[in-house]
């Protein structure tokens, strides 16, 4: 490592320890790191927005190519600044309305496609049979039906319906447990990576 890198990594190692110190309790070091990155991250993303979005999407079309259509979104964007005024803040609802209209309009078909159609198709695409895969498929189908019943809102969960709903929440909980267990290894790997980083820095500082 060069001296420059050593200093850079020294800062990185210091910030790493600042964040770890939070595990013991809130303290000035954590607070410092927290407030520092809030500023750095905002500055970073604002500049990213400026160079990779504002310049090609607003400045170039309007100022260089004179595509007047872009005046509309620009006005909608500037309208958001009325939020700084108490009296005129309501005007920003126009831009928000556009934003929400686009979002909810896209969501209707997208949700039905990715969540409803794809899951439905995946559930019914495989046949039930007497081998391992076929029996698993039967179990999946039963489990999906039971879990779906758990989410019924307008029917009391009583009698046979209640039994199915109970089976449904059991399936969901086993599924969640499995999901939790599956994540553990990856999370530990993240910590291992930080430990290896600190170890590497120590070696560079003293051993290398």
């Amino acid at each position, binding site marked *: 490592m060069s001296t420059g890198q050593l200093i*850079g990594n020294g800062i*990185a190692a210091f910030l*790493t320890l600042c*964040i770890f110190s939070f595990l013991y309790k809130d303290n000035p070091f954590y607070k410092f*790191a*927290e*407030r*520092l*990155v809030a*500023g*750095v991250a905002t*500055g*970073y993303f*604002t*500049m*990213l*927005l*400026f*160079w990779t*979005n504002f310049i090609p*999407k607003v400045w170039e079309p309007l100022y260089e190519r004179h595509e007047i259509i872009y005046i509309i*979104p*620009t006005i909608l964007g*500037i309208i*958001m*600044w009325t*939020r*700084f005024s108490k009296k005129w803040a309501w005007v920003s609802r*126009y831009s*928000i*309305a*556009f934003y*929400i*209209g*686009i979002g*909810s*309009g896209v969501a*209707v*078909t997208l*949700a*039905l496609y990715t*969540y*409803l159609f794809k*899951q439905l198709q*995946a559930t019914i695409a495989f046949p039930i049979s007497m081998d391992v895969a076929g029996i698993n498929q039967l*179990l*999946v189908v039963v489990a*999906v039906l039971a*879990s779906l019943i758990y989410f019924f809102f307008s029917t009391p969960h009583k009698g046979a319906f209640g039994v199915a709903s109970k089976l449904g929440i*059991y*399936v*969901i*909980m*086993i*599924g*969640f*447990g499995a999901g*939790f267990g*599956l994540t*553990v290894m990856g999370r530990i790997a993240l910590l291992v990576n930080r430990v290896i980083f600190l170890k590497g820095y120590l070696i560079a500082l003293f051993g290398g």
Partner: protein
Amino acid sequence: MRREVPLLIVFLFGLFMIVQYFIPHAKFAFWYQEFNNWTIIIGIFTMIVGIGSLLSVHYSKIRFRQEGWGYSLVTIVALFGMAIVGLLGGTEGDLFLKLYRFGLSPVTATMFSLLAFFIASAAYRAFRARNVISTLLLAAAVVVMLGRVPIGEILGGWLPRWLQLPNIADFLLNVPNVAAKRAIYIGVGLGVAAVSLKIILGIERTWLGGDGGKR
């Protein structure tokens, strides 16, 4: 003006976005692309509102010398420092990238790695066999965890193969986990469609503030 126009805007653009999904024609594809672009442009300008909020919170702390005002100073200096470096040198500038690499990314990575500690303490507290539901959660999580590391094989190596932990773990991931995922997704799909429809039709209007601008 304060309520009806925004509701009309939501209705028109919401309906357009639903309709365009079924129309591949270039004209519709063009406007779909443009409108998506416009939301990004609105987002760019709104960033100023965000920064305004950030500055006003920290400025008042510094001005009135509230407790911890020094930390607020750190935020503001970091924000302007990063912005000036990015403005002068661009996002590919050497200093900008170094500040990102040594100032921001170690904190991000370390915050992320705190999960290793939290996942352990959460497991310690939550995985108690209080009732059927928490027992199932506990058992499934433990089996899958054991199935992923050699401990599982050492513990269950004497069992027939289909009863060994890695195999039970795979079964749990392939059957209950998949089934729960599908059922929840199907419900989410219907829920999203329903809420979106209510928004487009102007029935759900909390986003206009409070009780949906009833006043």
